[in-house]
């Protein structure tokens, strides 16, 4: 690190630079153990690199102030959130998948895009989301209907409905 950088600047830049080891760690775990739990591996990478970063920062040669640690922690969380958003788009980016499809098969009309989406068609999208909600325990499915499994699902749904109402976002989705 250049000697003329202020400790706050150094903390900020260290957090930014730490996203490279986070990505390397995340990719390595996904390659070694499979990408089925890629989101979980992402959080493991954040925790691992975050711990290493804070140890490095607190044991570095100079004394540090709490304000520098606040800068380090908040900028690390900030860049982690940006990484998380980008990774989430890669995993489940709806618009991104449409672009990839149209690059592979240019000249499709809307009905054909819906039919060929993800190689499985648009109907599979809702099935996959229902399976994910079921897997994390928010909903349960019987033969005829879909319902909440516990209060967590009810709270998430009601809170988001309130937010949509206050911010007038419409029905969303």
């Amino acid at each position, binding site marked *: 690190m250049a000697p003329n950088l*202020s400790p*706050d600047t150094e*903390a*900020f830049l260290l*957090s930014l630079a730490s996203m490279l080891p986070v990505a390397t760690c995340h*990719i390595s775990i996904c390659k070694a153990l*499979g*990408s089925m739990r890629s989101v979980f591996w992402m959080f493991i990478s954040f925790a691992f690199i975050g711990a290493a970063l804070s140890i490095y920062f607190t044991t570095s040669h100079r004394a540090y102030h709490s*304000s*520098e640690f*606040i800068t380090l922690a*908040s*900028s690390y*969380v*900030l860049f982690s*959130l940006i990484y998380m*958003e980008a990774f989430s788009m*890669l995993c*489940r*980016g*709806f*618009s*991104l998948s*449409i*672009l*990839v499809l*149209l*690059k592979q098969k*240019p*000249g*499709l009309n*809307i009905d054909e*895009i*819906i039919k060929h989406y*993800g190689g*499985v068609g*648009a*109907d*599979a*999208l*809702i099935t*996959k989301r*229902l399976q994910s*909600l079921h897997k994390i325990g928010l909903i349960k499915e019987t033969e*005829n209907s*879909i*319902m*909440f499994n516990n209060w967590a*699902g*009810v709270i*998430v*749904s*009601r809170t*988001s409905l309130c937010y*949509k109402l*206050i*911010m007038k*976002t419409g*029905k969303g*989705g």
Partner: protein
Amino acid sequence: MSLVIISFIIFVFLHWIIANFTNRKGIKHLVSTAIIIGFFPYYLGDKSYSEFEFFSVYLMLIMFYLHLHIGIERSVSIRVLNEITISPDNKITRQNLERSYPINQMFRHRIQLMTKNNWLIEQDGKFYVSGKSNLLVLVTNFSRKLYGLENTW
């Protein structure tokens, strides 16, 4: 840290005003509001802490908020949960879910939006990726291969 909290509260309040009283509801308006609101309180207030300290905490809060906002507004899963909530007895059949939340309509809306923003080019009802989309697709394909991601839909 009180200045950061005040800035964040002003931002959320302004977002509410923009969402309720204007037709500018896009993410870019949200981001530009956040940037403007962040600058004013810092430069008008006291300088007891550094710019990096202020902006890293402020931007972290804004990022949390954007995650929450985009998650609630765009998430298919959240919309499914909402449809269950507004159904009688908090139960919905698959057929009723498809009726109240037609996926085809969502696709049409998204494709129209992407065409409007020049991510797609429409010619005689057929769609093609635009120049700026080409690079994005290239990066996406490379990254998906790098992470070994499958079933990305």
